[in-house]
């Protein structure tokens, strides 16, 4: 047991990019597992919500990877890293629960397409998913390591990935929590 710092949208699907909400509010498949296993929940801010707003387009890393967006993410990450420092100082185990495939919140899978831009027009599909962290997670890693802490274990919600399987998502989350 410990503290799970969770992506904002796992408690609030209203923050999702348009057409991206998988349920009305709380994404229970992740939250229920954390609760069952006795993990405390702390919600991280949604980096895209305050920066690009509720009417933002679906985007990839290259569209968000500007100096201004990195400064925004670094500001959010600094506060969260301070919170992680407090909890780590209390001897708590820490995990980060992100959103796989997200240009900002991906923990091991993000999205990338250097050609995407202009009038929003592209076919459905997941060809943009690549290994790597989203921009906010990269900034969080820097902020945490800057404070002399090891970056916590990570897990991710996988709804956006091709072949998403809720059972597999749960198993992966449990494996990270139980490590």
């Amino acid at each position, binding site marked *: 047991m410990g503290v799970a710092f969770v992506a904002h949208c796992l408690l609030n699907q209203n923050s999702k990019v348009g057409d991206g909400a998988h349920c009305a*509010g709380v994404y229970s498949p992740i939250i229920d597992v954390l609760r069952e296993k006795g993990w405390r929940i702390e919600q991280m801010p949604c980096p895209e919500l305050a920066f690009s707003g509720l009417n933002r387009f679906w985007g990839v890393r290259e569209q968000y990877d500007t100096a201004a967006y990195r400064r925004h993410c670094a500001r*959010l990450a600094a506060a969260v890293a301070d919170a992680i420092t407090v909890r780590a100082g209390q001897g708590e185990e820490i995990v980060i629960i992100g959103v796989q495939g997200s240009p900002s919140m991906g923990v091991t899978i993000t999205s990338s397409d250097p050609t995407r831009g202009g009038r929003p027009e592209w076919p459905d599909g997941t060809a943009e998913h690549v290994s790597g962290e989203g921009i906010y997670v990269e900034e969080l890693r820097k902020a945490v390591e800057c404070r002399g802490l090891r970056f916590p274990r990570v897990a991710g919600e996988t709804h956006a990935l091709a072949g998403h399987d809720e059972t597999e998502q749960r198993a992966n989350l449990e494996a990270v929590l139980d490590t």
Partner: protein
Amino acid sequence: MKRDERSFRVALMADSYVNPAPGGVDGVVAAAQLGWGVLQLPPDDYPPDLVRLLLYEVAEQAEEFARHGYDLVLVGHCEGLAEALARVGVGLPDGTAPESSVQLLEFLVDRPVPRAIAELGERGG
């Protein structure tokens, strides 16, 4: 914007309802049951400077929901929230500090239809 599964309802929720003590009111379960999203407020045990930083981010996000006509409510109390919201031009939303899950569920059920849903309906969304 195409309508998806979102509820357009967001509860700014004190940490004591997100991580309730044994026997306490579980705000997350109530929110999940009624389809509300949760915007968690900073825990009381963080240093005041950190609480201020976190509230700054909460307020910016709340402002975006308010501007788009999402229904915002406050569940519980949080020192400094009113000031943080005022900085972004948002008033303290209607609120409750329920002593039971039933009280919380009744409060949430009684809320009006969010303006965002009414506007989507008018546009055929």
